[in-house]
């Protein structure tokens, strides 16, 4: 399904396409669930902490870190969550265990995060058409670069911007503006922004006047009012067909 919601916006060949990463290129929740479970199992093996106790304290530590750091890249840091979790469990600063849990989390996460069907094809299509591709993503650079490398996309992008690089999470305008600056397209209007999150990606995309595409799948609600995207889709294969059709028209 691909549906154009904003009929007033003329969709033409883009000057560049910006993509969000988490939950846009792959489904975040199953990987997160599996990784959190792996951490819980490890804690149970190492320290005999029950799953229930772990989940309770983990949520608490996550909320504390988020409240403490606000909308910044570090507020998503699993290492900080696990360090605080161990403190909340009364284990003080168990640095080695915190590092071990972080590695367990990301290893399991990556192993269980297959790209959506058609993601690679869409990148190849855009490359073929010489359309620059950028990544605008929250979280720390280290883990986001690890993710893109693991997906085998390390040499696909023309620009990658993480919220760590600008000191603020999306929808902060700086994230998107830096991406455009890296692509030398600072004053361009015809940019596409593809993401899942109405608050971060759609609002953020609108701040740079981009045509916004929302990727919908299980657990994602469509943005409404000021968060309403210009286009919604649930399948990259269809988006790819749409792009091909758009270029075909242009060629004719």
């Amino acid at each position, binding site marked *: 399904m691909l549906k154009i919601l904003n009929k007033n916006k003329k969709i033409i060949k883009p000057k560049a396409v910006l993509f969000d990463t988490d939950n846009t290129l792959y489904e975040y929740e199953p990987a997160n669930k599996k990784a959190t479970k792996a951490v819980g199992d490890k804690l149970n093996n190492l320290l005999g902490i029950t799953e229930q106790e772990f989940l309770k304290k983990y949520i608490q530590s996550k909320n504390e870190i988020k409240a403490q750091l606000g909308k910044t890249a570090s507020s998503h840091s699993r290492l900080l969550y696990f360090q605080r979790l161990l403190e909340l469990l009364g284990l003080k600063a168990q640095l080695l265990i915190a590092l*071990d849990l972080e590695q367990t989390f990301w290893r399991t996460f990556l192993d269980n995060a297959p790209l959506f069907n058609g993601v690679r094809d869409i990148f190849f299509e855009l490359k073929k058409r010489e359309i620059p591709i950028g990544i605008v993503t929250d979280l720390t650079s280290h883990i986001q670069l690890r993710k893109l490398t693991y997906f085998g996309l390390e040499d696909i992008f023309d620009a990658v911007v993480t919220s760590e690089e600008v000191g603020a999470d999306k929808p902060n305008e700086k994230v998107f503006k830096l991406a455009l600056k890296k692509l030398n397209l600072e004053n361009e209007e015809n940019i596409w922004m593809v993401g899942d999150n109405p608050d971060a990606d759609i609002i953020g995309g609108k701040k740079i006047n981009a045509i916004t595409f929302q990727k919908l799948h299980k657990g994602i609600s469509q943005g409404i009012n000021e968060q309403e995207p210009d286009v919604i889709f649930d399948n990259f294969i269809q988006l790819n067909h749409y792009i091909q059709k758009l270029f075909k028209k242009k060629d004719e």
Partner: protein
Amino acid sequence: MIFSFINLKKITDSYGVKEHKRIEQLFRHPLFFIGLTIKIFLIVAITPHIHHIWFLPFLSQPLDGNLLDPWTQFIDKGGDALSFPYGIVMFGSYKFLTLIGNFIDNLISTNFFAKFGFRLSSLIFDFGTLYGIAFIAKKYSIKILLLVYWCSPIMIYILYWHGQLDILPVFLLIICIALMHIEKPIGSGVFMALAILAKSSMLIALPFIIIYYLRNKRITNQISLNLIPLGFILLINLIFYFNSSGFNKMVINSPESNKLFFLNINYGDGLSLFLLPTIFLILLYLFWRMERINLDLLCISIGIGFFSILILLPPSPGWFLWIVPFLTFYQIKAEGDYFFSSIPFYCFFLIYNFLYASGANVNFFDINFHDPLIEKFYFENNFLKSLIFTSLQASGLIVCLKMYQFGIWRNNYYSGIRGKLSIGFTGNQNIIINSIINSLSKILVNERIINLSTENYKKWDPKLTLKSKLNLKNEKVFNLINFSKDFFNIINKRNIHQNSINLNSKNNLSNKKYLNSNIIFLSGFQSLDIKRIRDRANLKINLNILNSDFESRSKVNKKMRESNYLINKKYDLIFGLIKNETKSNIKTNSLNGTYFQELFVTMANGFFHESLVRNLIALSSLKVDVEQSSNLEKVNLTINGDISSEDIMVISKNMIVNSEDLLFFGSKWSEGMLGIIQLIIIIHIADILHQRST
């Protein structure tokens, strides 16, 4: 725990998000819904004739006598002996929903729901079998699986039009294989017993399963755990039904059981050669003789076993149902033109059975198709019948041969190198090398690995002082002639000379173990000095332990690259392990009490180093430098950092071709640099094993 009946955690752990997603996609695929719609329509609209005349009267009888012996009660009340030639498991499984249907029918005075409940049971087992095949196959084309199993005209015809029940024993057999695969031998044995108790013909699969256990070293010791519950359940059943006159008449002496010795060659004087047991034994022998028996081969071989029955006996329509899941397994694994070669078989099956087997009645309307179609044409011609039957059997035989051909092909797939795989492994510290070889046998748990070391071929008596006078690099230290002779004797499966190798030393293995091995490591100083040995070795590895205190990292790297080994191009793989003198590293990277901070690897360029580097960096945050040799032939990697055994396990699944054939639940990876060395060596081994023989 091996004794837990079915460990759900182990089952779900073996399934990652990727596999779950594939299952989700399977059940969301349009073909799944098309198949499901057709099946639901048929179970609502159609009652197969044999349900009407046989199964439903048997299952709907009120059980007022012995609940576990409905056969005798049925016969005593004058029922048809052909009604239910199946065991207690089939009875119990189909009775449940039929009973609920009966209850609803009595409540609202209809006669629909008992029939519906009965047919719904078949749909549930059909769905379970689809899930089971997907679970076992793991990697498959969703479209092919749905086309050849779920939407298979054979399945739809047999289950929903003709109305046979053989799907239940097949479903139980699939669970048995799945449990065996995830090393739950007791559960597997129980389900095998249930399958046999549902339909005794499932016994055909049992010898294949026993051979699979015997030929797979990692699970051989589980065979008793599989056979004891299996034997126990069958024995209880035998004792219980031994005196049941109804069971004996309806099940043991059913017309189908009597077909077993139908096809024979008359040798005169009342002597006959029964063809089915003869061919079946040959099949078992061929299966036993296969070089490596993996799960694919087991499933395909069971399918061929069932096929032999179909081809050598006058088959009933329901028997074809036994082969469909295994035929499906073969088709999703083989893909390509194998799919099309089955089409004539499907066509002849449908033509023959529509013409000569009973059909169904349409519910709610007075329309019946229960007589074979041939009767509607008002002509019976035995020649025509035999012609179509011959075409059916011949096309079945072709599919069977194709399956065997694929089996052999798969077998060749794993014997790209003829005979045993030999790996030369030398270096400056034999203790470390021996530890690595031992650790590899903990990962390749299904392989029979031996280590033939020149250490056992010393000319001197280690207890005497002469040892100190001889330098290890002196070719006179080792009896390399005997070492070479023994190596080639093992390769050629000949006995090794008892006097040449010190068989009394504590590390030595019996002659039999040397001969039964399939991977031979040649280790120790000078083990690769003889050209004949070097030429035969499939993989040559060199490992040196280097001290970091006397040379800088770049100098060591340079030394590695410029070493004679590389110049001579003698080794496929060169490792350099840098000792960490400060021993400040955390628990990882320790080997025999020595800590390592860095690993140098030199290997062929353009093989897998890019993927290895990607995985090491992305999954484990290791630091990796990559450098190509000037002639682009080799690539040098410098790796440092900490890596856990879990990281290596995940990377191994990503990188090792068909890792499910080499790595199992019991595979134990090491952490740190040793784990990376293991990984790189096993990727090479897997690659050699997968090179198809030309």
